């Protein structure tokens, strides 16, 4: 295990400062290239991270950030190039080797066991370091105090909020002796207030001499927290930037290489004809738990997009499941135009014209090992042109798939390949195309652009806008506030199963939404940067 002096601070502020001063760099990557079959994920990556700084790595979805971080964390090995840690060239064959040289990773999705305490989670897999008892407890308290993480080793993880869980993840990595922390999109799961707290923690870590690599595509955040910024585009590092002198606009242009697409609302097409009405819907939780949905009422008119904002796990998924008929509401009604569909089955609801873009396309939207044309039948296996009576009409379904591939720009060599072999963006376009082909009256879109590339994102936005123009009623659930503000006619915030009053996306601020998302409406606890 290497020890890094906490006082060894570099003098220079500029990212392009002297490449000769090797010992001021915690991590240097030179000429890193990683090829996957058919694609080059990383090419000639040049990256130098000064010790004791927060270094942001920015780039669009699919630009190659995650691959690069996996290389640095030993999950994947580069085909070419060198990794230098604290002046030593290293080969990292596994995460264990990465942690041995002091590199730790905090993943976007937490890997914590809910039913264990913080202590138990932290020592899990690292029992040899300080045991599993008081030794470990003391060490956790010490780390928590040293870096201002405010974590109690004896708390149950299930009682902790998202921000605290993230701090536990950070502590886990520090406990294992990491001096260089990689944080993969750490703010994706946080509301603005929690983001501010996280940034305070990062500054604390930096002050103690640790090095933080921060991956993000949220530019405002990057500019507020980073000391240096490296921009990655199409698998290669294209620029370094100084946050003091760079604007978000400039960064964005470096990231996409051209002008930014943005989801801008068009002229309102909202009518006064309600298409989907949710009336006082309750969904009780498991015994002793609070309600999962609490008196949810909501109306979507023809030509209207209603956006639902909220921290994940506040009832968004359940709201969708209740509307789609996968769960029965405990009380309340759901009306499709004038018909009560509350106790209809999923299939009847889909046949009645409710399109569904599920939140998790791999689990709910696709049969990954089935060919594209069978995936186009999925969800519409009782509807033309897929069936003739009780039989599947493969010929017609294939023709329909060809049309979807063409109209919705699904990039695939054939409709006979499995859906699992397509990229995320193309899978999503296939799903959206399949739903749109049946011209639904209502479209339930849960995180429609999650994990897709910029190009696909832009085309998905335009498909949704077109649907709205054509009089569809759209329920848009998203974690991306920019997307919600840009597309929605009305935004509602969901918190602990209840919906807020409507916000007007043209005037609402991120802070107001963030406050509603944490329940601190009107009196946000802290300033948000």
């Amino acid at each position, binding site marked *: 295990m290497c020890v890094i002096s906490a006082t060894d601070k570099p003098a220079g502020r500029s990212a392009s400062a002297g490449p000769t001063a090797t010992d001021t760099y915690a991590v240097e990557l030179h000429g890193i290239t990683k090829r*996957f*079959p*058919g*694609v080059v994920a990383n090419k000639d990556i040049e990256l130098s991270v000064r010790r004791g700084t927060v270094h942001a790595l920015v780039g669009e979805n699919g630009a190659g950030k995650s691959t690069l971080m996996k290389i640095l964390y030993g999950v994947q090995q580069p085909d070419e190039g060198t990794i230098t840690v604290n002046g030593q060239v290293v080969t990292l064959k596994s995460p264990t080797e990465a942690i041995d040289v002091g590199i730790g990773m905090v993943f976007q999705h937490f890997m914590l066991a809910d039913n264990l305490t913080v202590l138990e989670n932290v020592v899990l897999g690292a029992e040899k370091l300080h045991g599993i008892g008081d030794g470990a407890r003391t060490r956790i308290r010490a780390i928590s105090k040293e870096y201002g993480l405010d974590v109690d080793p004896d708390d149950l993880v299930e009682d902790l909020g998202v921000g605290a869980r993230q701090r536990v993840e950070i502590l886990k990595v520090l406990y294992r002796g990491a001096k260089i922390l990689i944080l993969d999109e750490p703010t994706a799961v946080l509301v603005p207030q929690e983001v501010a707290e996280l940034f305070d923690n990062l500054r604390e870590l930096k002050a103690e001499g640790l090095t933080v690599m921060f991956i993000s595509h949220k530019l405002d955040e990057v500019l507020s927290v980073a000391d240096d910024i490296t921009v990655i585009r199409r698998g290669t590092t294209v620029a370094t930037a100084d946050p003091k002198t760079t604007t978000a606009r400039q960064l964005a242009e470096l990231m996409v290489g051209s002008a930014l697409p943005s989801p801008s609302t068009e002229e309102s097409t909202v009518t006064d004809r309600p298409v989907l009405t949710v009336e006082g819907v309750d969904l009780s939780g498991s015994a002793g738990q609070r309600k999962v949905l609490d008196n949810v009422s909501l109306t979507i008119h023809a030509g209207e997009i209603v956006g639902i904002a909220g921290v994940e796990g506040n009832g968004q998924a359940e709201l969708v499941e209740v509307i*789609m008929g*996968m769960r029965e509401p405990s009380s309340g009604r759901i009306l499709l135009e004038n018909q009560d569909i509350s106790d209809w*089955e*999923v*299939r*009847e*609801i*889909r*046949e009645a014209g409710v399109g*569904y873009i*599920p939140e998790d396309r791999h*689990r*709910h*939207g*696709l*049969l*990954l*090992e*089935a060919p594209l044309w*069978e995936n186009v*039948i*999925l*969800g*519409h*296996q*009782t509807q033309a042109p897929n*069936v003739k009576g*009780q*039989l*599947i009409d493969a010929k017609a379904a294939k023709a329909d798939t060809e049309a979807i591939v063409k109209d919705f720009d699904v*990039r*695939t*060599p*054939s409709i*006979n*390949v*499995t859906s*699992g*072999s*397509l990229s995320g963006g193309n899978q999503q376009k296939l799903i959206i195309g399949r739903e749109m082909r049946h011209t639904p009256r209502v479209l339930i879109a849960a995180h429609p652009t999650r994990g897709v590339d910029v190009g696909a994102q832009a085309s998905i936005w335009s498909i949704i806008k077109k649907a709205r123009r054509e009089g569809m009623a759209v329920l848009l659930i998203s974690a991306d506030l920019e997307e919600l503000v840009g597309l929605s006619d009305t935004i509602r915030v969901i918190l602990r199963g209840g919906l807020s009053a409507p916000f007007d996306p043209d005037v609402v601020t991120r802070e107001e939404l963030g406050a509603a998302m944490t329940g601190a409406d009107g009196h946000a606890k802290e300033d948000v940067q």
Partner: protein
Amino acid sequence: MSFSPRKILMALAAPVLSILVAMVITSIILLAAKDPVGEVWAQLLRLPSPRLTIAIVNSAVVLYLSAVAVAIGFRMNLFNIGVDGQYRVAAFAAAVFAGQAWLPGWLNILVSLLVAMLAGGLWAAIAGWLKVTRGVSEVISTIMLNAIATYLVAYFLQKVALSSEGSNVTNTKTIPESSRVPGIPVTIGEQQREIYGLIFLAVLVGFLYWFILNKTRFGFDLRATGRSETAAIASGVKVKRMVLMSMILSGAVAGLVGMPLLFGQDFAYGTTFQAGLGFSGIAVALLGRNHHIGMAVAAIVWGFLEQQSNGLQINAGVSDRLVGVIQGVIVLSVVIAYEIVRRASITIEQRNVAAALAAERAKAQNAAAEVAA
């Protein structure tokens, strides 16, 4: 469906490879036990006599039915281990019914087949119902039901049995001559033998299995549920109903397993009725990869090994139980091999798709460059 040579090759590679692996491992066992390796393989792999050839086909018929019953469950991620109990309950019920000869001739056979399907289906429905309403794993419940079936049938057999004098074999009432299914006479060389007339039933079941699964809405729903239960639910499949229905269907086909034996050979259900066919069916379904043709080939391989083992003790001085070892190793290695092939196929396909798209992009860029120039 598109058939590329690569796909076919990969599909065949796994079972062939696992049979080879099984041969190697068995040889090692024989060597370790100082048994004559060469003689064992000479006995097992020699050209079967005409009598054995027919016996192989006949046992393949029965094994195929059993494999289809198992495969219906497999396609939906249900592990119906209970085919064994289901076919015995069904064969007993059909034997009792047919033995009464309430109906004349062929009508008696047809209705008896329905009785068998009904009995097998109902027996399987217990496991399906437990799974749907109480969340009991079908693996556990079908194992239990197998045991219950054994004792229940033995109990009822005592009630209805006619003990033949001077023998401790207990049988149901023998089916009248008019309600027996005549065999198909086949002459090989000098000898004339008979194949079960109900081979046509196996062919029909195989065809319906293929047709229903691949061509109907019901089959689509069933396969979708097997591939991803969550996606199936989101697409509107009522998964609980599908579980119950496919369990019943699997049990109904299991009910037919004993029929070629009952109407073509034994003409009664008794203590000597062939047991264990349900378990062999699991192995055949695995080896044949739940494919309507694949399982037929696998059933023949299985029947071949079983019949060829008869001479093992006499000709090579080795216990015929050795074949059980070979079969076991085949099943184990085929499961592993299919998983390897499955993962390899996924990777290869992803690579091909990415490469095809990259080539397309490059072409488009070149074209754009030419236009610009």
